[in-house]
C-alpha cells in the first residue's frame, strides 16, 4: 500500500469509526436526556 493509499485508507476508516462513535455518543446523550426527563 502506497503512502497515498494508506492516508486515504485512514481517512475512510476514520470517517466510518467517527460515524459509529457519533451514534454511540448520541445514544448516550439521548439516554441521559430521557433519564433527566423522567
Amino acid at each position, binding site marked *: *500500500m502506497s503512502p497515498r493509499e494508506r492516508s486515504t485508507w485512514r481517512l*475512510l476508516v476514520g470517517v*466510518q469509526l467517527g*460515524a459509529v462513535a457519533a451514534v454511540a455518543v448520541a445514544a448516550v446523550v439521548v439516554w441521559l*436526556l430521557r433519564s*433527566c426527563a423522567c
Partner: protein
Amino acid sequence: MADNRRESDGGAARRRSVGVVGNTRLTSLVGTTLLVLLVLQVASAVVFALLSYNVAALGGPVYDVVRPVHFFVGFLLMPLIAIKLVSTGYRFGRYYTRDRAYHEAGPPRPVPRLIAPILIASAVTLFASGVEMWSFRNQFGYAWTAIHNTAAFVFVVALTIHIIVHVREANREAAADLASIPVTGAGTDIAAHEPLGGAVTRRALLGGGLAAGAVLGVGASGFPVASWNFLQPLRPGAAPFDFPLMNYEGGAQRVDVAAWRLRIAGTVAKPVEITEEQLLALPMEEHTYAISCVDGWTAVRTWRGVPMTTVLRMAGAADDFGHVLVRSTSGYFWDHARSHVLTPGTLLCTHIDGRRLNDDHGYPVRLIIPGLVGKSQIKWVDGLVIGRGGPQSFIGPHLDFKDPVVTGHLLPANPAGHRR
C-alpha cells in the same frame, strides 16, 4: 460487495482483468459510503420508532429532528443502493454466463454468498415498504409498519455479517481507487493495487448517486427546510384548522350526530351512551400543546374538551383498568395504555382554538393526548372499550366493528368536509 481476493501464491498475486478490478472498486467505493450512511440510518430508525409511540419520551425537539432525518437519509441511500445492486448484479451475471475474466476471479466466499440473497431481499422489502408508508400513509392497510420493522431487523443482521466479512477489503480497494491517478491505456491484466482507468467514472457514479439521493431526500423529507418538501407537499387543513390532514383513519368522516353516540363499555360498572348534547354539557378543560405527526409536521393548538377521566368516572371504569381502546367511526382504533389516557391534559376534544371541530378534524369528537404521535389521536370517536391488562394491539381496523355497541351513523360522503 464483490469479493476481490488477492491470494498470495508463493508471492505471486492473482492477476485479474481491468473489468473485474474496476467492478470491485466501484462496489467498494459505494459500499464504504453506504456503511457510514447506514450507521446513521439505523440510529435514526431506532429513535424514530421509539418516539413514534411516545413523542415525549425523550423530551425536547428530538422527534422533530429525527423524523425528517430518517426520511432524508432513507431516500439519500436509494440511488447508492441501486448502483451497488447493479454493480454486484453485473458481476453475478457475468460470472454465471461464464465470462472468462469473472469466472477466473471466482465467486464470493461461502458466507457472503449465502447471505447475499437475504440481504438483497430484506433491503428491497425495507425500502419498498418505507416508500409505501411515506407515499400512501396506510391507505392500503396497516401491515406495512410490521413489514418494514421485520425487514429492518433481518436487514441489520445480514448487513452486520456482510460488513464484518467485507469491510477490510472494501476499505483497501476504495482507498486504492481514491488514491490512484487514473491511467489510460492500461494493459488487459492488472494487479488490484495498481492505478486503474475508469476512476473518474466511478467517482462520478458515486458523486452522482449522492447528489441524486440528496435531491430525492430533500424533496421527500423537507430536510433541512420544510418547504422544500416538493415530492409530497403536506395537504393543508381546511380553514380555520390550518394543520395538515392525514389519511390514517380512512379519510374524513361525516357523522350524523342525531344517530351518533359516544359509547363507553368494557370493564365498567355501567355501560354509558352519551349524545353530542350531553357531551357538550359536561365540564370542559382547555390546554395548549403540540400534536406531532410521523409524516413530518408539528402544530401547537389550544384543545378544549371533556377530560378523559370524567367519562371514565361516569361509566365507573374499574380501578385497575389497564387500557382503553379508542374507536373511530372510520373503522380505525388505537388501544391506549392506562398511562396514556391518564396523562394530564388528555381530552375528548370538541374544539380547537375555540372553534368547533369540522368533519376533516374529527367532528363531533376526537381524542387528544399530550405527547403522543398524531396517528394514535383518534378522530370521529364513537367508542371507548375499557379493559384490564395491557393494550391488545396498538393500531388496526376494528376487530369488533360488528359489535352491537357500534352502529352506523354516517352521512353520505362530503368531500368538502365543512360542516359548520
